[in-house]
């Protein structure tokens, strides 16, 4: 069987290795326009900050691909014809396939700002290998940088540019930093931490226009509040969207919505064509379609795609949501999903930049957001699955601590605060009758 995989990110590579694991005879082609070898996109910031060399970003020794007989093909795919079972690269080369996996990931969202069309240099994103190179080139040009965004990539780019010695303004449209992941109190801790590291954090301002000089180099951004921020480097980190626009002009496009629409077996509308990772929009029975854009989800989908391509009757089943992040020095663990109908217990430690936020509904714990210390998310997800009460969870929370030896966070003050919170919220913390 001939398997072609478009995209050598974590979804594509996991799928390629997964196919090889189960089918020693399949021919596997891994196609990428971005890089010769799979690299860890999540580590771009460490390459920028001189902690890692380019080669260190590669999670597997290069010999693995030959040893596993995975053919690496460099090039951008220009055409897909499902009737003849072929794809065509920009070089003109045509590859035949029996199974095709599209794992082209995400691309940065394009902002609706005036003046963008005249920008020739100085504007960067921070998600691809090419972005990394552009950021390094742009960071050499001057002192002032503006990062627009309000999520993880924005703070990572801000940290990088601070490391490079630039004056960094972080422009956040929302009233606080990263509202989809953090509460306003958590965000306040993160923003204080960013300011401590010298980042000029501005919230509640929306960029309206970009100014450039005669050669198209960025000189400033202007916000709707009519404030002007001079900058020679403009980082645009306002989110990513599935990289699927190239599929609109191919001979046989698969069904597209936000991403490539796939069923629970990660099959697209075209026979023999699958999609996985950030570019896929998975239709699960009885649920709203999901576009997951995390390293973890891409890896999971890649694993499922491998088996599905080989004909196994497998369905993608997202586990209890979890994610991790690092905001300068503050590590964050998120497990489960918060909603406005839940009751929340929040505690901010005085001993260090650390906090706990737990939510419950109907007597059962539903979500955790834990900042500034380390936690075993699997245990926490298990407690959500077991519908344990907040009372019970607070009592055994130390079992899930994952801090270094001698460095454990003392949970005693949090438990005392919880007792006070429970007294003030008598309906919470008890299972419903």
């Amino acid at each position, binding site marked *: 069987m001939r398997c072609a995989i478009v995209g050598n990110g*974590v979804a594509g590579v996991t799928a390629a*290795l997964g196919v*090889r*694991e189960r089918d020693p005879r399949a021919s596997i082609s891994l196609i990428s326009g971005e890089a010769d070898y799979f690299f*860890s996109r*999540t*580590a771009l910031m*460490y*390459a*920028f900050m*001189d*902690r*890692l*060399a380019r080669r*260190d*970003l*590669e*999670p*597997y*020794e290069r*010999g*693995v691909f030959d*040893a*596993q007989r995975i053919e690496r093909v460099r090039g951008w795919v220009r055409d897909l014809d499902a009737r003849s079972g072929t794809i065509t690269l920009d070089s003109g080369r045509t590859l035949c396939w029996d199974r095709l996996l599209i794992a082209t990931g995400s691309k940065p969202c394009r902002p609706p700002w005036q003046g963008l069309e005249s920008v020739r240099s100085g504007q960067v994103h921070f998600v691809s290998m090419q972005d990394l190179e552009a950021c*390094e080139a742009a*960071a*050499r040009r001057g002192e002032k940088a503006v990062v627009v965004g309000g999520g993880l990539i924005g703070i990572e780019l801000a940290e990088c540019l601070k490391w*490079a*010695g630039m004056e960094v303004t972080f422009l956040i449209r929302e009233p606080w930093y990263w509202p989809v992941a953090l509460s306003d109190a958590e965000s306040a801790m993160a923003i204080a931490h960013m300011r401590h590291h010298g980042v000029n954090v501005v919230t509640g301002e929306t960029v309206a226009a970009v100014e450039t000089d005669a050669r198209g180099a960025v000189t400033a951004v202007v916000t709707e509040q009519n404030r002007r921020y001079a900058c020679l480097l403009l980082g645009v980190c306002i989110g990513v969207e599935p990289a699927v626009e190239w599929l609109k002009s191919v001979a046989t496009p698969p069904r597209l919505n936000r991403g490539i629409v796939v069923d629970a077996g990660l099959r697209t509308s075209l026979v023999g064509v699958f999609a996985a990772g950030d570019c896929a929009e998975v239709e699960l029975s009885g649920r709203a379609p999901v576009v997951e854009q995390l*390293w*973890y989800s891409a*890896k*999971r989908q890649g694993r499922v795609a491998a088996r599905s391509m080989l004909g196994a009757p497998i369905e993608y089943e997202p586990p209890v949501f*979890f994610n*991790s992040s*690092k905001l300068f*020095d503050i*590590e964050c*663990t998120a497990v489960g999903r918060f909603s406005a109908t839940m009751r929340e217990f929040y505690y901010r430690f005085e001993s260090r930049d650390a906090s706990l936020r737990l939510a419950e509904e109907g007597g059962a714990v539903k979500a955790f957001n834990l900042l500034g210390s*380390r*936690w*075993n*998310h*699997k245990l926490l997800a298990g407690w959500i699955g077991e519908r344990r009460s907040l009372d019970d969870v607070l009592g055994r929370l130390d079992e899930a601590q*994952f*801090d*270094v*030896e*001698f*460095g454990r966070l003392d949970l005693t003050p949090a438990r005392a605060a919880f007792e006070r919170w429970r007294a003030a919220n008598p309906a919470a913390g008890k299972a419903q009758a």
Partner: protein
Amino acid sequence: MIRTTPGARLAHDIANRGATAWIVSALLFAFYIVLYFTEWLTPVARALHLGSKWTLYGTLYTLAILIGGSFMIRRYGHNRYQVVRTLSVMIVQVLFAYSLPQLLAFLQQPEFYFSYFWPLKLDYLTPGYLFHLPWPFILWSILASFILVPILAIFFGKRWYCSWVCGCGGLANTFGEPWRHLSTKSSAWWRFERVSVYTVLVLCVVLTALLFVSYAVGGTHPQLASFTSQYQIWYGLIVASVLAGVAGVGLYPIAGTRVWCRFFCPMAALLGIIQKAGRYRITVKDDMCISCGLCSKYCEMGIDVRSYAQTNASFTRASCVGCGLCAELCPRGVLRLENAPPRAPQLQLVQIATQR
């Protein structure tokens, strides 16, 4: 990479095998060759009222550990494990490897290092040396090598020695810190390591046995006595002087800080075997790794930690000295050093990618 200031450029150059790194390496080689094979440092030591060149060396070594250790604590002050561990190597160096031996000499006692044991210090189980010591020293040497060292290694892994007590490890984890990432992570060097380190251990054990046999029956078997003494001289020259000293430290700026510990140290080999059977392990948090590679890059022992982390495989590697930098640097808190009794094994994904 953007290195804006000259200072930052120099720091990068020294730490990443640039021209200055080769100069530093050459200077370290030169220093060790002069120290071991000439008497040029003796007048310097006398001028500084330090007695012998070895006291001068001990003073420089201790200063390097104290200065490097202070930087280490400043840098990783937020991590209690790093602070405690670094203080431990600093205190052990000052007390047991520097002050106490001099105090003993002052009291007309043998110059004995309570922080070194056989097989790292071959003499301490060599009849010709050991039996000339006062009996408490003999008792300590034997009990430490055969009881204390293995028992602690069963409960805490080799780290209690290699990254908490040992002077070689102490220098690597303080003065050598800027070069820790230069250790090679390739699987070919892992294969070499497994051959080289156990070869030295076998050579060391055989030599020790021969020394006892020769001590007992050497008088009637002069050929054996002569062979053993030649063997001891060559072992001392190649292993103790060249591999541990000249190359071990001289290669810091080129091949990383643990060349001696990883490829040649018989003590590390022995402790590694015990560690594999003991309680120490690095626990990996399932599915949380982002494959960034900081753990592998900064492993001074050249362990490809990421290959375990990204496949959810908790592990114990014989070479791991438990410095804890992988856990410190992991941006997602995936790794933790533990000495817990074995648990039910986690579901470990057999990943073909790790088969080499």
